């Protein structure tokens, strides 16, 4: 059975202390005095530390989410240097605006992706102005319509989420979505009852729906 992580976090003036974490899938965060090993922290613990302004926590958030943020920026803007710039802008502005983040409104990753969308949209608008200028000068109008920003971001987020689903749910979705297997084939391959496979697929789809709604709900 899968057991979700359970953390008791005591928040006192000037410190956050993770008291205990029960999770079969990972080691407990090491509590040494006031020091917290953020590498072992859950996303909830991280978001609390982030909101409280712990810079060591920011570094861990960066370590976990920079590849996702960078991929979104790189793929939507098709430029590695723009991808790097957006990535640093997102973390710097998120850190400065961390008072605006409210954990009860959604995940930290959703909030950061929301900021990323806005930065990318700004960059694309600026490029659009440049492009119109070029078109005005060269009198060209042919323009390849790129995949819309939101669709691409959704695809990247969905891929990431599917990759993070626990077994067998993640495996079932990967086989169904990425390898095009039928549900009876998956049931046979994983040696699971067909009804179980379908039930996992339904729940996984609803989970993806919730995650995506979280990512897109931040107005920023």
């Amino acid at each position, binding site marked *: 059975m899968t057991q979700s992580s359970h953390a008791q976090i005591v928040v006192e003036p000037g410190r956050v202390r993770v008291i205990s974490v029960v999770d079969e899938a990972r080691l407990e965060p090491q509590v040494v005095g006031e020091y917290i090993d953020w590498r072992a922290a859950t996303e909830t613990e991280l978001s609390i530390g982030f909101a409280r*302004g712990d810079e060591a926590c920011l570094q861990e958030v960066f370590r976990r989410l920079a*590849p996702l943020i*960078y991929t979104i920026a790189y793929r939507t803007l098709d430029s590695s240097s723009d991808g*790097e710039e957006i*990535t640093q*802008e997102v973390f710097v502005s998120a850190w400065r605006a961390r008072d605006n983040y409210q954990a009860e409104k959604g995940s930290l990753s959703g909030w950061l992706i929301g900021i990323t969308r806005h930065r990318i949209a700004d960059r694309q608008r600026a490029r659009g102005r440049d492009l119109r200028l070029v078109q005005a000068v060269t009198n060209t109008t042919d323009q390849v319509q790129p995949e819309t920003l939101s669709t691409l971001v959704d695809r990247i987020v*969905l891929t990431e989420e599917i990759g993070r689903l626990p077994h067998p749910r993640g495996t079932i979705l990967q086989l169904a*979505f990425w390898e095009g297997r039928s549900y009876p084939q998956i049931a046979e391959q994983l040696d699971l009852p067909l009804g179980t496979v379908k039930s996992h697929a339904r729940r996984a789809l609803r989970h993806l729906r919730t995650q995506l709604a979280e990512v897109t709900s931040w107005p920023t």
Partner: protein
Amino acid sequence: MAHLSPDRLADSALGIDDPLTAAEQNHLASCAECRDELGELSRIAHLSRQPERVAPQLVPTDAIWQSIQVQLASQATAPATTEPSPEPPPSAPTIAELPRRTPKLRSWFLVAAAAVFGLIIGAGITTVAVRDRVEVTSSIPLDALPGQTGRGTAELIRDRGRPELRVQIDAPPTRDRYREVWLINADGQRMYPLGVLPDDGRATYPLPPALAGQLQGFNIVDVSIEPYDGNPAHSRESQVRGVLPT
């Protein structure tokens, strides 16, 4: 009829199990709520079939992280810019130097941060002839970590040409424990122990030979509180910390 159950909507979006009955289709035709939900589930199922993978190895995270630290540090010490020295001494990093170390980060953002930072360093530097042949290259504040008290300064100096780190902190020593000074890499993984900090909180340490020319990213000055446990590793409990300019 009632709304379609979440399972039926998911089934339909996934194309599994029985197709929708006539009654269900009639309901869908008249219920915008169910239609929207099915539309979104179908869209997600469709997009999920076109994976777009994150490629962590493509990300130059070290350079980006360092740049973020520079910008955050420049914000943290911003009050120092109230009285910038009109001409930063030549040892301060110039705008031209920073982009060379992180060649891909060309944003105006970084250039602006570097400019501000240059001013701060300019303000922090004393081109000293106060002490004999000791030149202060840069000076930074050391601030207490959450839950800790104390503050101090760390200075990169050259004593008759030898690069050293001078640390001075104003924080009470902890009973039954001692303090140690470290240079930590921006990756947060690698670190050099410079030595034990005496109880009066003042000491000067020669830099490791590998860092004598450039800090190579080991620009976080950290003072840890260590138990007498015979374990030479960092206790992971830090009292004060500061970031040297790259």
